């Protein structure tokens, strides 16, 4: 069992870090780098949304934290001259802190009530970005420099992106690394006591508090981790596009994060990753259908929902009992 798991992980890493770059170099489809980088980053955000699902809350507000994280990184780089690499954790932390403040009141809500508030939150964030002067209103922040060199004790770990001949590959590797780290963390959370406690919340909050679980604290913690993921994803997106506007992440993005989770399957740690890959990559491939892109995409989504209402990964369950 354990060697099988190890092999699975090794195979996955091999595919992400070796096969994909090789395949792209061989086929010459350099545009896939952008698509796959987006998939990796979006799946980090989706991992956060999935974690809030895991405590029994429908989170349609991840776009808000992606936007926040993006702005924090952009403002720190442009106004304070801080290196992108330092802004990355700061963006995540900023989002985590804000989410604690927001989460304390709203996490008391359940079901559609929580869902609706988080949806509104995305809109609030967009409007805040429009109204503030530090975010430069509707004009947004543009001409953000590419990430500089990352070095530790004088040792260069990542060279300056501006000097690379293939920054696309570098961004892909960066996003993929962050994705792997995020999912490793998520996997660890779910399979440690923390995850068991989250599941106890999802299934019965009253009972959980009767056995001494500090439900309010745990809810806020899970939400903060979720928002941290959102912030990180947003910050890297900004580094790639070198710009950010209030409309960089909108309600549709928040809804999409949720859909990725649903489609992959809410009961499976790697559900959101698969969901993101299918939906985002599928969307991208469908661009050949021109004006029918959205029609085919949404029809496919509805069809999938009818065929596998519990997520694509639930197909695995048919064979053997539980995951």
């Amino acid at each position, binding site marked *: 069992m354990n060697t099988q798991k190890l092999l699975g992980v090794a195979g996955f890493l091999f595919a992400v870090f070796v096969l994909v770059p090789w395949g792209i170099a061989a086929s010459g489809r350099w545009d896939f780098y952008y698509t796959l980088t987006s998939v990796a980053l979006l799946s980090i955000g989706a991992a956060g949304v999935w974690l809030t699902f895991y405590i029994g809350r429908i989170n349609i507000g991840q776009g808000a934290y992606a936007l926040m994280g993006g702005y924090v990184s952009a403002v720190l780089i442009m106004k304070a001259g801080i290196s992108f690499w330092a802004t990355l954790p700061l963006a995540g932390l900023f989002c985590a802190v804000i989410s604690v403040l927001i989460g304390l009141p709203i996490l008391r809500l359940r079901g559609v009530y929580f869902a609706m508030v988080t949806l509104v939150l995305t809109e609030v964030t967009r409007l805040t970005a429009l109204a503030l002067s530090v975010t430069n209103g509707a004009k947004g922040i543009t001409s953000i420099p590419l990430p500089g060199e990352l070095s530790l004790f004088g040792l260069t770990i990542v060279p300056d992106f501006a000097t690379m001949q293939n920054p696309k590959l570098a961004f892909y590797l960066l996003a993929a690394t962050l994705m792997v780290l995020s999912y490793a963390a998520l996997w660890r*959370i779910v399979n440690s006591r923390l995850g068991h*406690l989250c599941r106890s919340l999802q*299934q019965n909050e*009253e*009972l959980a*508090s*009767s*056995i*001494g679980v500090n439900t309010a604290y745990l809810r806020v913690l899970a939400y903060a981790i979720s928002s941290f993921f959102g912030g990180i994803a947003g910050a890297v997106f900004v580094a790639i596009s070198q710009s950010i506007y209030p409309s960089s992440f909108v309600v549709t993005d928040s809804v999409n994060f949720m859909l990725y989770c649903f489609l992959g399957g809410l009961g499976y740690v790697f559900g959101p990753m698969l969901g993101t890959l299918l939906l985002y990559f599928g969307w991208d491939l469908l661009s050949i259908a021109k004006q029918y892109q959205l029609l085919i995409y949404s029809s496919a989504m509805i069809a999938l929902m009818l065929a596998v209402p519990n997520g694509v990964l639930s197909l695995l369950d048919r064979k053997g009992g539980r995951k």
Partner: protein
Amino acid sequence: MSTILEVKAITKRYGGLTAVNAVSFDVAEGEILSVIGPNGAGKSTLFKLISSFVPATSGEVLFRGAKISDLAPHKVARMGVVRTFQETTIFKSMTVRENIIVAHQLRAKASLLGFFIGSAQARADEEAFGASADDIVDFLGLGAIRDELASNLPQGHLRALGMAIGLATNPTVLLLDEPFAGMNHDETMNMVANVRRLRDERGVTVLLVEHDMPAVMKISDRIVVINFGEKIAEGTPAEIQANPRVIEAYLGSEDAAIGM
């Protein structure tokens, strides 16, 4: 025996309805005390007040002399006053053993971060929880269903699992709301014996709400009777059976009289 729990004039109003009205009684350490009364009398509400799941309108509950009635429920549980629910509540999509392990939260010494990184303390905790869960499984005779998914269990087993979850918190006072509901005679007698052993072997003080009168009479040291939210009698099983107010309360309701 010393007093462990003091309920003082506790009152709960829901809008115009007074569910529990100025109820007072003391519980001695190591006692098995039953609360009985017709349906809707306010028994479950009383338990929710004691475990601080609902805020009291007035009155208070003291545990070893300290007020617990305005603390958060998880804090009350942490102090050792733990309730199980009337509606069977268990974690449905976990196995019996997983249910019990999760319920060991109060005994965790490692922090959540410790569990995340798998610190030595966390591993020691996990091991202790596993062993203790197996111990509880054996104590309640649930060995055969240890790895069964809780959602697949019949009613009788669910009750036992609910009690196992309560036990896992290592309670000083355990409040059981209708622990024998949905059980057949044999299962009930088995649970009665378990509750006794809980007190005798582990020194747990037990409060229970129950409708099964033969079981109540058999198990209880003392009984508190409430009707329409008010306490109408308190005493030993023999005293209660001889109390005319109690008989009247039961005859006046749809419940059967305290027939033996």
